[in-house]
């Protein structure tokens, strides 16, 4: 836990504008030269409910939300209920303050809106006593009053930001610039007044007795603050994706929205359709016609895509599908992350699955692997899935702008032109041999034609078929076609091993004989825990795996042979990734202990450190956090 960091939590009701306030504050911190990381927590409700956003800012790279936090801005819930509702739901106004105290670090700072909450309610919280115990510094400020004085009550967020800046010794210039960019003239002026008033008021009214100040940092180059969902969308755009079809479902909706908002400007098509079966089928139809196309959804919606997904496998239609996991089963916890859909995306749809699945671990990987997904889908004519979750989709991080300065890749992969079709094999009635086993093609791919091309006619069918696409049940043809489709995965694995930097991320002490393994969005917390363990005198190495299918057999065998024991960290209850390792490698079961979390919140680094310690201890001690240690089961 670094001392030189700020973790600012702004809490209020959903609908209180916390997202935009925190986004601007995070940008201001980024512009001041700090690295930032945001984490958003919200209930599945439009109005009210306990919501917060955390911004972690430090001079060096931050890759997780960290443990706990050290500055609370409790805005009060403006959608607090009327007397009837309060009788059932309790007093919501106080919740931004009361619900957030448990995770506040020692010595932390609390600002709450004394113009909003009742002092009596505050007294009931024993705030004074708890502050004393924990060394907290409490600043009650009438944010609502400040806002009303110059403008409207909703502007109390701005007052809160002014107070924050003042208490942290932070200049207002970046905040002001950002407000100027974001706000229309009419509301800009009162907001600026509120910002300054709040800033000055606290420094006049209070004697600052806290130590926390905004850290100082410096960037070598210009940065952009963006989310995992942005990164996926931008990866798709740069891969030449110009067709997206979807149906809203949290948390997939973010990617769908970003792409829908951009598609018409870049010559593409976005379609919101009647259901997810249609969405996936549209993506298939567009790809079949020759567009780079995608669709996606979250758990339940993705379940509806099962059959079109199988059709893509059978017809070898390139397609990229995005699956944004949220806690299941069924509607589950709609706005909370979980890594429970791994087995689902690997195997859903009938028959042997032949698909590629990547699980990016952070925002840069989300971009890279989405691009790679399109490349592989179109080169190998195979559905490729990006599986991520609410955590990665919703969190924001700064990335150097230069990261995105690269060539787009609009290639259609293994697709023939009309000139090439003239040379290709056809059958007696002029059908192009679209599904021909070609011993000369090293990748096992038979190039495709597109409807409307001269001389490329073929039938795509979900039934087993002959080279020209004709429905065919002959056993020999069946075996040839099955093997041709399945072999592509081996070729993709070879290409991933040879042509690309590994999609797996390694960290920690290379010589360690204890390994921590994770996948996807748990990466940040695990990497931080490994760093902390090594700093604390332990010797641990870590790996975050992104290639779910085809599985990185060589890399994982090497890693597991190099350690005596390993802990697999993942957000689900049935140790799905551990199961995948055992299935794919057929051994190492006795080395693999699991650390599992499925309470709806992502891992914090300290929970992983504790899990490691308890595992080494081997005693009966229970973890203090809501996690579960699942001992090694053997093979």
């Amino acid at each position, binding site marked *: 836990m670094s001392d030189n960091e700020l973790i600012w939590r702004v809490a209020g009701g959903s609908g209180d504008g916390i997202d935009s306030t925190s986004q601007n504050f995070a940008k201001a911190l980024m512009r001041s030269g700090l690295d930032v990381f945001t984490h958003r927590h919200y209930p599945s409700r439009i109005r009210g409910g306990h919501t917060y956003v955390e911004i972690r800012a430090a001079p060096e790279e931050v890759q997780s939300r960290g443990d706990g936090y050290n500055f609370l801005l409790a805005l009060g819930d403006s959608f607090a209920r009327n007397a009837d509702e309060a009788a059932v739901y309790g007093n919501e106004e106080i919740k931004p303050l009361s619900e957030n105290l448990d995770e506040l670090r020692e010595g932390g700072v609390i600002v709450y809106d004394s113009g909003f909450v009742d002092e009596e309610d505050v007294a009931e919280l024993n705030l004074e006593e708890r502050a004393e115990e924990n060394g907290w510094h409490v600043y009650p400020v009438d944010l609502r009053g400040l806002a009303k004085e110059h403008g409207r009550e909703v502007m109390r967020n701005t007052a809160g930001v002014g107070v924050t800046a003042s208490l942290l010794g932070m200049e207002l210039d970046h905040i002001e610039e950002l407000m100027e960019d974001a706000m229309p003239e009419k509301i800009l002026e009162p907001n600026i007044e509120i910002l300054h008033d709040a800033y000055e008021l606290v420094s006049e009214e209070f004697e600052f007795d806290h130590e926390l100040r905004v850290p100082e940092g410096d960037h070598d180059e210009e940065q*952009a603050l963006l989310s995992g969902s942005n990164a996926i969308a931008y990866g798709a755009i740069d891969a030449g994706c110009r*067709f997206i079809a979807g149906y809203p479902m949290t948390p997939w909706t973010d990617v769908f929205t970003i792409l829908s908002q951009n598609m018409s400007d870049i010559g593409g098509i976005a379609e919101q359709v009647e259901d997810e079966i249609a969405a996936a089928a549209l993506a*298939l*139809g567009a790809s079949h016609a020759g567009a780079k196309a995608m669709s996606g959804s979250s758990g339940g919606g993705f379940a509806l895509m099962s059959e079109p997904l199988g059709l893509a496998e059978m017809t070898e239609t390139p397609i990229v599908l995005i699956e944004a996991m949220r806690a299941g089963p069924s509607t589950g916890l709609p706005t909370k992350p979980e890594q429970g859909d791994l087995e689902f995306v690997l195997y859903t749809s009938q028959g042997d699955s032949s698909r590629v699945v990547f699980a990016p671990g952070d925002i840069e990987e989300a971009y890279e692997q989405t691009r790679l997904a399109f490349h592989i889908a179109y080169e190998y004519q195979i559905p490729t899935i990006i599986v991520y979750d609410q955590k990665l989709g919703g969190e924001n991080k700064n990335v150097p702008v230069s990261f995105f300065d*690269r060539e787009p890749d*609009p290639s259609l992969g293994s697709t023939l032109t*009309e000139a090439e079709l003239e040379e290709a094999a056809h059958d007696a*009635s002029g059908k192009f041999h679209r599904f021909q086993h070609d011993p000369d093609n090293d990748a096992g791919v038979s190039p495709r034609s597109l409807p409307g*091309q001269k001389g490329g006619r073929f039938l795509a069918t979900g039934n087993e078929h002959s080279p020209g696409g004709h429905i065919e049940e002959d056993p020999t043809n069946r075996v040839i076609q099955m093997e041709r489709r399945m072999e592509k995965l081996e070729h993709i694995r070879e290409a991933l091993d040879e042509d690309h930097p590994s999609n797996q991320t390694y960290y920690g002490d290379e010589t360690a004989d204890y390994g921590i393994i994770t996948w996807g969005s748990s990466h940040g917390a695990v990497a931080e825990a490994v760093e902390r363990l090594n700093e604390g005198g332990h010797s641990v190495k870590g790996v975050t795996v992104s290639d779910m299918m085809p599985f990185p057999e060589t890399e994982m065998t090497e890693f597991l042979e190099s350690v005596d024991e390993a802990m697999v960290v993942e957000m689900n209850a049935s140790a799905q990734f551990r199961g995948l390792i055992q299935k794919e490698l057929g051994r190492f079961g006795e080395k693999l202990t699991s650390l599992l979390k499925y309470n709806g919140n992502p891992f914090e680094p300290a929970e992983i450190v504790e899990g490691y310690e308890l595992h080494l201890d081997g005693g009966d001690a229970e973890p203090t956090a809501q996690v579960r240690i699942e001992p090694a089961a053997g093979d």
Partner: protein
Amino acid sequence: MSAFNAIGESREIDRDEFTPGLEPQPTWCPGCGDFSVLKALKQALPEVGKSPDEVLTVTGIGCSGKLNSYLETYGFHTIHGRSLPVARAAKLANPGLEVIAAGGDGDGYGIGGNHFIHTARENHDMTYIVFNNEVFGLTKGQTSPTSPKGHKSKTQPTGSAKSPLRPLSLALTSGASYIARTAAVNPNQAKEIIKEAIEHDGFAHVDFLTQCPTWNKDARQYVPYVDIQESDDYEFDRTDRQEAAEMMYETESALYEGTVLTGRYYVDDRPTYAEEKIATGEMTDTPIVEQYFDDDREWERSYDLLDRHK
């Protein structure tokens, strides 16, 4: 220059070009109404100047879904009920294609019913032929959404308690802009209606009565039939939604009383979905598929979208 030169090519097109060499003879049962749809298409396509390489036939699953195995065009034999979403996306991506979707009554009015409603609503410029044999053919004769009330099958042993769905009326309320019914026993009308449907700009729905002698025990042959345009008994204006609706209702009811009414029921020249999308600025008029073959195209990059994140 286009990368899709089969599209709009002007040349003499022979009917035989639409007969595949590999399986020229369909495996439908003797006397099956599906033959008539195939025949009507083989006649209609050359007459409207379409060649096999510029037509994409998208089918569902069922006996009817085999259509594109026996019709030599680009084909996509999809999954049960999903021909329409596949077909309409192909049309959006490459508007030059002549897109024809086809499937059974179970496929289109049952499992794919939601897509039928929405594709009609959006008025995609394509033709949709439903092989309506009032039964599930391929799965051996179960009751379908258009089976008459009381229809007995292995899965409805005491006779269906459900009233049949009204396909023409459903197409009308959903937004289809060309609606017709024809029958296998009326080849000339069938061909003409299919030609009109193909040439219509918008979603053209053809409910094609195709008898299934194998499973429909009553062995309906849809004779005698009446062409409502030719008969003096039926006067209505098919550009008038109200009158069309009444005529459809009467037609649908009459079928179950033994009178087979066929003909054109509705036509409307409202803009197609693509036209609407271009008008709102949601889509440009350059086909997206052509962009991938344009070596001079400057591809937009996310790098140019980053201002909002700085």
